[in-house]
């Protein structure tokens, strides 16, 4: 099949394994095949192209979309009926259980087009099957046996088979691994889809530079292709302007290299969107001017919310026993070493926030705010709204009314910025920095 070789690159061995597994049209194939490999290693693409080009009867289902078993089963059945009958019949099957599915599947495949050849069911993102009913995965694994039909189920997943195997045991599928593309493979595949207006060599040189920059951080083919498309106009710029010829690789490299490095910090991380990136390229703006998403860390809060957040931070990161030391006027001298138990001596910031009861939060709040704060409804609703903003987190759910417990989820930098706006020296109150 010369056509297949042109469209599927660098996966020759996997294709031939699959082809030999499938055998002739009327042969019974292996009941279930499990294909796994890293993101963008061509699992979906290879199976889809293989089934399509050899015109085998198949159903392709993405399990992310099927959040109920019913959706999954009905989708398979409906697609199969669509296969067998040429005219667009609108009879929708309804199927709730796997048992029904087996029965209906027998019916559906008992037609002229499907009877004497292998039917393939491809379940993409098969890891979602694990979250569904327990009988589903084992059932699909031995579908051939259950239905007594010539059917093969292909599972595509990014996770190894060992993580799938149910406790009760099951039929073992044929496991096929798709290894990651090597840099040479990536080069070959990416160069393959060059734009028609430029020569293949010119584009291949560009891909070479691109991979030189990005290969260390990203091996995702999709992402690389996206980046290649985004930055190609910039690469062509000198050629279009007439400053360099297509052969002048050195000059082109000097032009594109810093640009790509910038792209790695911004558009690759989705700090700025690809359309904004294109605009930058077109108008020749300095990318430093456009701030990414992470640059906007500042959150404006009401005055008391700031103090509530500070109090929550102190309560989360200071041991309870030290409250006396920080918030009482005549606390006496407490030495850090003798005062605490052994486990409290390690940095609390390394251990992460601890939960604290509401009363402790309020007590700290009253002592850090200069003016007198009345415990009004507004203060309490502010605590709740901080929870909805995910700056505080509610811990545990059973004791909501009597003694709710919270955790502070903001970072030290964030809280320092907040504390600075209200002239509160938070470092002085943190036990870790004593």
């Amino acid at each position, binding site marked *: 099949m010369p056509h297949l070789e042109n469209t599927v690159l660098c996966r020759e061995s996997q294709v031939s394994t699959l082809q030999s597994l499938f055998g002739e049209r009327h042969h019974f194939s292996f009941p279930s095949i499990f294909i796994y490999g890293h*993101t963008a290693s061509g699992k979906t693409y290879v199976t889809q192209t293989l089934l399509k080009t050899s015109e085998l009867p198949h159903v392709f289902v993405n399990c*992310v*979309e099927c959040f109920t078993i019913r959706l999954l089963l009905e989708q398979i059945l409906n697609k199969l009926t669509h296969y067998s009958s040429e005219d667009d019949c609108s009879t929708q099957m309804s199927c709730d259980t796997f048992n029904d599915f087996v029965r209906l599947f027998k019916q559906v495949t008992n037609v002229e087009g499907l009877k004497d050849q292998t039917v393939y069911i491809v379940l993409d993102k098969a890891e979602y099957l694990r979250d569904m009913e327990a009988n589903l995965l084992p059932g699909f694994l031995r579908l051939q046996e259950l239905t007594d039909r010539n059917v093969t189920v292909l599972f595509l997943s990014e996770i190894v088979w060992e993580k799938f195997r149910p406790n009760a045991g099951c039929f073992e599928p044929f496991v096929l691994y798709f290894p990651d593309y090597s840099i040479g493979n990536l080069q070959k595949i990416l160069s393959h889809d060059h734009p028609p207006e430029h020569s293949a060599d010119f584009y291949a040189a560009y891909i070479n530079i691109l991979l030189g920059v990005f290969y260390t951080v990203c091996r995702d083919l999709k992402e690389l292709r996206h980046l290649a498309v985004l930055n190609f106009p910039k690469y062509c710029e000198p050629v279009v302007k007439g400053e360099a010829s297509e052969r002048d690789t050195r000059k082109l490299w000097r032009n594109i290299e810093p640009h790509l490095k910038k792209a790695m910090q911004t558009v690759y991380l*989705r700090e700025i*969107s690809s359309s904004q990136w294109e605009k930058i390229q077109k108008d020749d703006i300095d990318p430093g001017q456009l701030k990414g998403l992470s640059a906007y860390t500042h959150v*404006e809060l009401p005055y008391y919310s700031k103090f509530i957040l500070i109090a929550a931070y102190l309560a989360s990161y200071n041991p309870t026993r030290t409250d006396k030391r920080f918030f009482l006027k005549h606390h006496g001298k407490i030495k850090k070493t003798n005062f605490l138990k052994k486990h409290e001596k390690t940095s609390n910031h390394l251990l992460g926030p601890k939960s604290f009861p509401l009363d402790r939060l309020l007590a700290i709040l009253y002592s850090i705010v200069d003016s007198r704060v009345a415990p009004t409804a*507004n203060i309490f609703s502010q605590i709740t709204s901080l929870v909805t903003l995910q700056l505080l987190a509610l811990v545990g759910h059973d004791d909501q009314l009597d003694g709710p417990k919270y955790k502070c989820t903001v970072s030290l930098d964030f809280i320092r910025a907040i504390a600075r706006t209200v002239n509160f020296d938070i470092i002085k109150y943190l036990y870790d920095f004593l």
Partner: protein
Amino acid sequence: MATSSVSKGCFVFKPNFKRRKISVPVEDYFNKGKSVSEDSKLRFETYQLIWQQMKSETEQLQEELNKNLFDNLTEFLQKSHSGFQKNSRDWSCQIKLREIPVAALVLGVNVTDHDLTFRSLTETLQNNVTPYVVSLQAKDCPDVKHVLQKLASQLVGCGVAAESKAEQRTQVSQKRECCSMDFLSSWYRNATQKKIDPKLPSKKRTLSSHWQSPPVVLILKDLESFTTKVLQDFLIISSQHRHEFPLILIFGIATSPIIIHRLLPHAVSSLLCIELFQSLSCKEHLTTVLEKLLLTTQFPFKLSEKVLQILTNIFLYHDFSIKNFIKGLQLSLLEHFYSQPLSVLCCSLPEAKRRINFLSDDQCENIRRLPSFRRYVENQTSEKQIALLTNERFLKEQAQSLLENLHVYHTNYFLVLRCLHKFTCSLPKYPLGRQIRELYCTCLEKNPWESEEYASTLQLLRMLAKDELAIILQKCLAVLKSSSGTQLGSTAQRIEEFLAQFQSLDAEAREEEDASGSQSKGLQKTDLYHLQKSLLEMKELRRTSRKQNEFEVLREKVVDFVDSLVREFLLPPETQPLHEVMYFSAAHPLREHLNAAPRIALHTALNNPYYYLKNEALKSEEGCIPNIAPDICIAYKLHLECSRLINLVDWSEAFATVVTAAEMNASSTVSEEMDEVIHARFIRAVSELELLGFIKPTKQKTDHVTRLTWGGC
């Protein structure tokens, strides 16, 4: 209700329809139960009128403020959808199409205001971009199934509205259980194909006629509350169907856009094309609202310093919510018209003058009772005093002129206030506040020139450079010119004169510079030593002749002029007779209503039952517990004396002692039956306290309960 039946049993009473129909008209509540009318109806109508005006003003304001943001958003949506529209076979477009356009809309932490913004956003988008606008909240979306269901039902709702197809609705109700993305995309195909059909001349079609396939805009109102998994799965699914279902997302973000990265892993965020949009800061919003509603003569209603302080404090300290601020303003407006009988005069000047003529005797008496009016009377000659206190007609005439004065006072007041703000807002450290509202509060409170801050402001003003001063004066001139009235015409003239003088100074200065330039030329030829010497000499010379140059004199004049303006026009409203008509000053009820303190109220109720029950027998001194108080109060007071763990036995003993204190005197023996009753009462009181959340059972110690509250409240 009585029955004529002799037997015991349940009886059905049908509601009495006649009684229900007699509903009290709202304005009657303004009567305060008094028989005298005191124009209650008129007052209510005036209230409604002013509130309507204020409301429409704020709505208009909000629209204006959001306009910029919405325009940007619309542009983004149109641009990002154009790629889908072209459907080009272009090499790069094919790959880019996979990304879902996302507008990250940072709205600030005032979540209560977001609803309004989203509502008007939806409206704008429906008018300009696409009929298919859907908004979802996190609480409706516990899993992907619900997301798709909500999306489908709302979308088909849009379609029905646009095309009025009843059959579609039935189709959906059948499909409700399994709304998959396939269903949505096939629905979309059908809906858009129908659109192309020229037989349907619907209104929406003409609006979005330049688009055969409008995008579907999904607004996620509170991104922070969405769970990671739901969002991830939904984004993966919709990116796979992007080519047949052109979805565009709008994320409503309250905190900061980093939350996107926190919620979504790179594998998912790489499916998005995120652009950031920021709404106006809510503090600026407040400033504009105040400017439009209070710092203007358009509305006669004004707030006193304390009330304004309460409202702004709730805003700045607690919620940042414009909606709540306007609600507070509405409450004070209502409270003013409700509690002040003379508020009937709180309307436009000609109308108020007309109304004065129809005032009843009671109302005249009310005028006489006003403290500000009494002060005014005391300063008059004795004949006039008598006339004011006895002659109704004379009083009315005087009141008319007083109201007119008040009106003029306000016009001048706000102009001068704005001018003063122009001076103070650029000073270092802002001694009188940066925002005009802070300045307004200071001026309302007392005579502004008596404060220390004012003195330091003047001092700073005396140090301003020439160009700064000129710019400020120009701004002031613009403020004064903007008003239609001619009250401050002379002031504007004075400022113009000042400006002219500055310009002439400039010209002179240039000449002087030329002169000094020639002098310096002479210096150049000497050696270094001489140069130093001559420079020192010049410095000496300048110090000794530290006479004020012309600019300094002029600056002094300007500052004095500003000072005189302030002293003349920025008198606090309390000095004006009849100010009570327009100023609402009852800060206490407002605070009670807006900043409720449930814990304190509960504590008062339990600690001092007299406060609410008004039973004379319950009146007691601090610290002692009357035995006739409700059981829960006794239990509560006793529990206040305990530490964290409360021994139930001790508590019950103490309870019994208090309750039986009175009877003990009469008969020393307490019967067993009595004891049981007291025991039952104690248990009930304790369980009530547990229900209220003061104590809870503990497993740390047997027969103990834990105290959950601390302190006096």
